[in-house]
């Protein structure tokens, strides 16, 4: 597969290490009342869609960026690649 890195352009996916669903960015609030349940769901439950999937890839043999790749799990077509850091900020994560 080829991942079109937002900074570097097309790079072979073998340069990357895969983590999983980009929902792993949405780490729950540790102080929330339902934190135990929220962390369980965050840690263990997945949509696992047959279709578009937002997922985290680390450019291990490259610039060490974490990317969020939107890829179809039935065709492997990649429709979007973003820097995870940008997406994390967009989803409200900060410090």
């Amino acid at each position: 597969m080829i991942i079109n890195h937002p900074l570097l352009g097309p790079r072979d996916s073998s340069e990357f290490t895969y983590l999983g669903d980009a929902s792993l960015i949405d780490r729950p609030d540790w102080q929330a009342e339902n934190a135990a349940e929220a962390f369980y769901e965050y840690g263990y439950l997945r949509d696992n869609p047959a279709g578009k999937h937002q997922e985290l890839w680390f450019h291990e043999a490259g610039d060490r960026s974490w990317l969020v790749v939107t890829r179809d799990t039935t065709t492997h077509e990649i429709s979007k690649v973003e820097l995870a850091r940008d997406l994390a900020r967009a989803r409200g994560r900060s410090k």
Partner: protein
Amino acid sequence: MHDLVAITALGGSEPQVDTVGGVTCREVPAVALASVASRMGQEASASKALAKLIGAPTPDVGQHAGETITAFWAGPDQWMIEAPFETHEDLADQVKSAMGDTASVTEQTDGWTRFDLNGDQIPAVLELLCMLDLRKFDAGCVARCSIHHVGCFVLCRSPESCSVYGPRSSAGSLHHAIVAAMRSAL
């Protein structure tokens, strides 16, 4: 001055040189390295300080630039600084004082081993080693890539000259891979 004697990454007292069919692979220990990473929110001033340090515009993504002190892009808001070892053994300190609080600086001199390839058929060698698109890999380009499972930087300095940086501990394996590719391709 201290009295400890250095050895090269390949374990010799002198750098190793191999020539096959018009391409030379030379071990280059005489280089000092330091990494620079902009501090959060200081990207612009870091870039400015870096440009001043190398006497050239701060290299963009996938580029390298500079004269005596050169810099190459290593990641978002990160660069590696190269300079002659003889004169810049304390490169990290020099860079830190140039960058001030705009960037984090880390000594990288001995994190890496460098092999320079010279000759007119470098692409034939490189295409057996890494997946770079050599059609677009002109002078001034740099890319991180994997060579036989070793993470490397490759810099194109001119059509007949490039540098390969690999982790120092893997110097033997990297050197073996390069020379085997030279024997195969040339």
